[in-house]
């Protein structure tokens, strides 16, 4: 009896092969097997014969929407930087997408990075992706040489041990608190849809930090982010970070210094998160790819919470609603205004 992921893998291969063979799409963005346990390689498949390489498992932590704009461009007929866009229909690209990834695609569509009609979403209801870091922490220090995935367990092998762990307990925090695991865009359905999850409090971790004192929060922030080595993996793994020149790299003006001191790294992370405000779908790619294990997702999650509470918007869920920072309501909350009657800071 094949596992759920084996079934999904097979379905993906069949569908991808079909899409490529009948020339519905020019490329398929998916995952192929990795060289280490708990890794997969994102890959762009352009030939039907290549589809056998595609895999699906619980380690697909990088958001494939990240590749979409560039791959779409790569299948267009070549043109110079000043040439206008061709007018006729352009080749399509298929991409695997879970709930949060599909919502990223929606944001990319809202922000004109991707045209809906050129994307074939191979929709996969997410069962939650496993955090490699959690598994490694569970086996603290013992090297993991192979991980076999069953439907609800992971069989972890080392040089001198084999142990079975519960899969859900190793699932990433963002997936555990996810309420929309099923894609909002579906062109080709892979596997069974995932039902929305009732999560009593998806912002529990954020609230735990909010409950601390200002000084405690600063201590947490300083400690968490000072291990940043400024490799920008978090930024580059994010499908929303598509600026040709990131503010952190810009010399004119030099918004953020280049050193590793707490201010420079802190400012980078605060502004990076802020730039995702109202756009982040909590796909967790940033956190998953950080070589230093920084929990930068807390900042975007905090913003997600505020955007939902203040403006009632969840990124990528309402394609027809403008993004929260590109719109307003005359009666938006403004308790933070210092001279507003009833402001939070009034008399403080």
């Amino acid at each position, binding site marked *: 009896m094949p596992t759920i992921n084996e079934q999904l893998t097979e379905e993906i291969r069949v569908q991808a092969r079909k899409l490529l063979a009948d020339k519905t799409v020019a490329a398929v963005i998916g995952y192929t097997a990795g060289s280490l346990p708990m890794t997969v390689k994102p890959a762009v498949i352009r030939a039907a014969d290549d589809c056998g390489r595609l895999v699906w498992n619980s380690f697909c932590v990088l958001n494939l929407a990240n590749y979409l704009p560039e791959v779409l461009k790569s299948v267009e007929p070549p043109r110079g930087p000043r040439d206008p866009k061709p007018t006729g229909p352009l080749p399509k690209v298929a991409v695997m997408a879970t709930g949060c990834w599909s919502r990223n695609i929606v944001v990319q569509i809202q922000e004109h990075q991707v045209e809906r009609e050129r994307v074939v979403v191979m929709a996969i209801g997410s069962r939650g992706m496993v955090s490699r870091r959690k598994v490694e922490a569970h086996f603290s220090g013992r090297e993991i040489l192979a991980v076999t995935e069953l439907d609800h367990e992971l069989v972890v092998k080392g040089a001198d041990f084999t142990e079975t762990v519960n899969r859900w307990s190793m699932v990433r925090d963002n997936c555990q608190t996810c309420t929309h695991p099923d894609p909002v865009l579906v062109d080709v359905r892979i596997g069974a849809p995932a039902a929305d999850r009732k999560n009593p409090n998806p912002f529990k971790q954020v609230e735990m930090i*909010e409950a601390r004192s200002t000084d405690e929060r600063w201590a*947490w922030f300083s400690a968490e982010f000072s291990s940043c080595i400024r490799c920008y993996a978090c930024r580059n793994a994010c499908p929303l970070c598509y600026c040709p020149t990131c503010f952190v790299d810009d010399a004119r003006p030099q*918004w953020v210094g280049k050193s590793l001191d707490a201010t420079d790294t802190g*400012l980078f992370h*605060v502004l990076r998160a802020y730039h995702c405000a109202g756009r982040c779908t909590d796909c967790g790619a940033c956190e998953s790819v950080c070589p230093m294990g920084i929990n930068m997702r807390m900042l975007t999650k905090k913003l997600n919470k*505020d955007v939902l509470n203040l403006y009632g918007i969840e990124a990528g869920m309402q394609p027809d609603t403008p993004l929260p920072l590109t719109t307003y309501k005359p009666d938006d909350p403004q308790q933070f205004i210092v001279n507003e009657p009833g402001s939070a*800071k009034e008399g403080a």
Partner: protein
Amino acid sequence: MTNQTSETSKTSQTNWEPKIIAFLCNWCSYAGADLAGVSRFQYPPNIRIVRVPCSGRVSANILLSALKSGADGVLVSGCHPGDCHYISGNYFARRRFALLNNLLDFVGIEPGRVHFSWVSASEGEQFAEVVKKVTDKVKTLGPATRLVKSIDTVQAA
């Protein structure tokens, strides 16, 4: 270590006076500040005004870089909602600031470092009041150290 250097050098001055950067919109709050002057409303001399066309011109980047440069406090002030000279600049600003304000609070920037206000061209007294309130608050917080950039002054001097 470097943060401490700046802190001690700042506090060692016996009469520490905060410097507060105030981004004022050209049409309302800057004019309100002028009216405060014409009306001789007295307020603490701690703000340094940067005139901007609209509160909607002030981005999170600008605000944070004022903190980074060493502002002990930052005030952004614009027209009252509905009165924006540019129709909607302050509405967009309000959303940006609401989120930024919460995020800064979340990472442990002391509440009261960063302020936002609406002051119209006719509210000279209101402007003076806002500056008083903001200055008092920043004074109780002491010199800013969080997200303040500091480089090794020993080697440079």
